[in-house]
């Protein structure tokens, strides 16, 4: 019984990531009290811009309910075992975590914004039009998830410039 209890259900709505991707945090037991668990799920699609008349602050909990209802179709006990739910909307991603327009990759990963076009043509080498201002985030080549490549490549370029 206790084993089935979820301490926190984190629902993170983001624009670009695999659909309902629920994973029980069994690998790191220290994240939850003994026997309890955390369920974290990425939810797609949750567009940053909602249709006219709708905003994320009023839609937030409805969105959370919708996700729980969807999971319940596959795991009927989910509703009974939730102790707390955290819903992170694209607007929260922007306000709290500084991701402009809630894009988790700091900008769409599409052909016209990749490689020598990331983030924009002419400024894909971690430098910016402002001297001594560099970029090292996911919005620079190669972008993507948690891998550190943009940071490393940016550091190499910055060292080349000898900016210290």
């Amino acid at each position, binding site marked *: 019984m206790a084993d089935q209890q979820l301490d926190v259900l984190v629902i993170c709505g983001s624009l670009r990531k695999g659909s309902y991707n629920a994973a029980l945090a069994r690998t790191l037991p220290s994240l939850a009290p003994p026997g309890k668990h955390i369920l974290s799920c990425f939810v797609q699609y949750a567009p940053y811009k909602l249709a006219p008349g709708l905003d994320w602050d009023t839609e937030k909990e409805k969105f959370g309910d919708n996700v729980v209802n969807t999971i319940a179709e596959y795991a009927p006990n989910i509703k009974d075992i939730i102790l707390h739910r955290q819903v992170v909307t694209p607007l929260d991603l922007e306000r709290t975590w500084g991701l402009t327009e809630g894009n988790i990759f700091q900008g769409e990963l*599409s*052909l*016209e914004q990749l490689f*020598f*076009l990331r983030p924009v*043509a*002419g400024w894909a080498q971690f430098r910016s039009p402002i001297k001594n201002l560099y970029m090292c985030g996911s919005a620079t080549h190669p972008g993507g998830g948690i891998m550190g490549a943009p940071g490393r490549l940016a550091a190499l370029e910055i060292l080349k410039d000898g900016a210290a």
Partner: protein
Amino acid sequence: MAETREVIIVGGGHNGLVAAFYLAKAGFKPLVLERRAQVGGAAITEEFHPGFRCSTLAHNTGPLRADVVRDMQLEQHGLKLTTPDVSTVSLLPDGRALVLYSDAKKAAQEIAQWSQKDAASYADFGAALGKIGKVIGEALLLTPPNIDSPNSGDLWGMLKTGRSIRNLGKKDLYRVLRWGPMAAADLVAEFFDTEPLRATIAARGIFGTFLGPWSAGSALVLMLRAAADPSPAGSVQFPAGGAGAITLAMAAAAKQAGAEIRTGADVAEIRVKDGVATGVVLTSGEEISARAVVSNADPKRTLMSLVDPAHLTPDFVQKIKNYRCMGTVAKINLAISALPEFTALKAKGNGNLLRGRIQISPEIDYLERAFDESKYGNFSRNPYIEITFPSLSDPSLAPAGQHVMSIYMQYAPYKLKDSDWESQRTALGETVVKTIAQYAPNLPRTILRHQIITPKDLEETYGLTGGHIFHGELALDQFFTMRPLLDWARYKTPIERLYLCGSGTHPGTGLTGGSGANAAREIAKALKK
């Protein structure tokens, strides 16, 4: 004893006729075999109601490539093209209309009534399309290079195009690199604020394709079309006598150059012996052998049906099976007793505004929703529509005072879910008339006859596999060195002496003659060796 010919061209569509002309000029006496009673393929004019003749399928030129028009002397062979003052009228459900004129300045003046900023951007966008289009246009003239081992001609062509691209300057160079994979909706939003203007221009990137304005790569289609015609929304050019007049002039030019054309000659099979094309067999049983066979049919029809696939490697067959060729366009032709009275045009005077192209593409979301339905196997209930009145540029196409109305309807997916086109034909026609009637309430009362051409008809009657009007999807993965397939983009096929010259080869797109002219150049070279 079967007769032997130098070159047989299977199919007398516009590209087949263009190829026939150039091959005749090069000294090979080509024999064009056309299955139907008249040449022209998708560029034909037919009587569909007593006294009413319409451009049955295509109703506008691509436009035709200037060198093709010049070399074939199409004007001397009777082609008379007119460019109306108005190019596009885009209708809005609220009773307004955005009018674009062929003259860029006049178009900008009209757009200024919607947005001063957009009027300025319209000129910028047109100029950028012109510059970029010129460079892409150079690539469209090329035979795609051999990627594995480029020859000196390939290198020269690439070098020349490469230099032209560099000469564009930084700003337009970045645009060329960036725009292709974009969604047309994103691209137009960078230039314009006015929604109907955005949608009307973006529509050019989805025409004839299985793409919505938000699909990645729809900007490529827009750029390809702009390469032939840099006017932002696309210009209009109507031949007197309808689209069939273009191919009649082409046939006359090809004949004069030395080609022979036989209609009612339905090729059942392209004969192959030991990996070499040796001729054709007609459905009548007649055999004609030839030194080379050139197919104007689409790649799938040519290589999966006219040729016995047993002559191809399984790997190649798999690739050609995966060639994307699912049409999305239906064609409706109406014989009408009077011109429709468009509510939005009453104040502006209906008459002259109907001489261009009339579009129902009021907003990006409208187009995307129309596309959505096709993804799930339904035709659009609120379709994207393009209308022309061929009888306004040539009154002889209909009895005095009456007209023919030519309508492209999109999206009509070739594959319907849980249904078939024969049972949906009437519903399709009703949907189109009902949609237009929202903008011109008198239309239903004026209709004397409907001709409804579904994607299935495009396949069965006009030989377009999957009902695809471009002989295969225009997309980054089926373009240039990959049209129709990577390694087979040079008009040759794995069957020796079997060549392709249709829209399924580079550069493809509409009624331009580009594929036929490029193919003839390569075929003549190969046969002279």
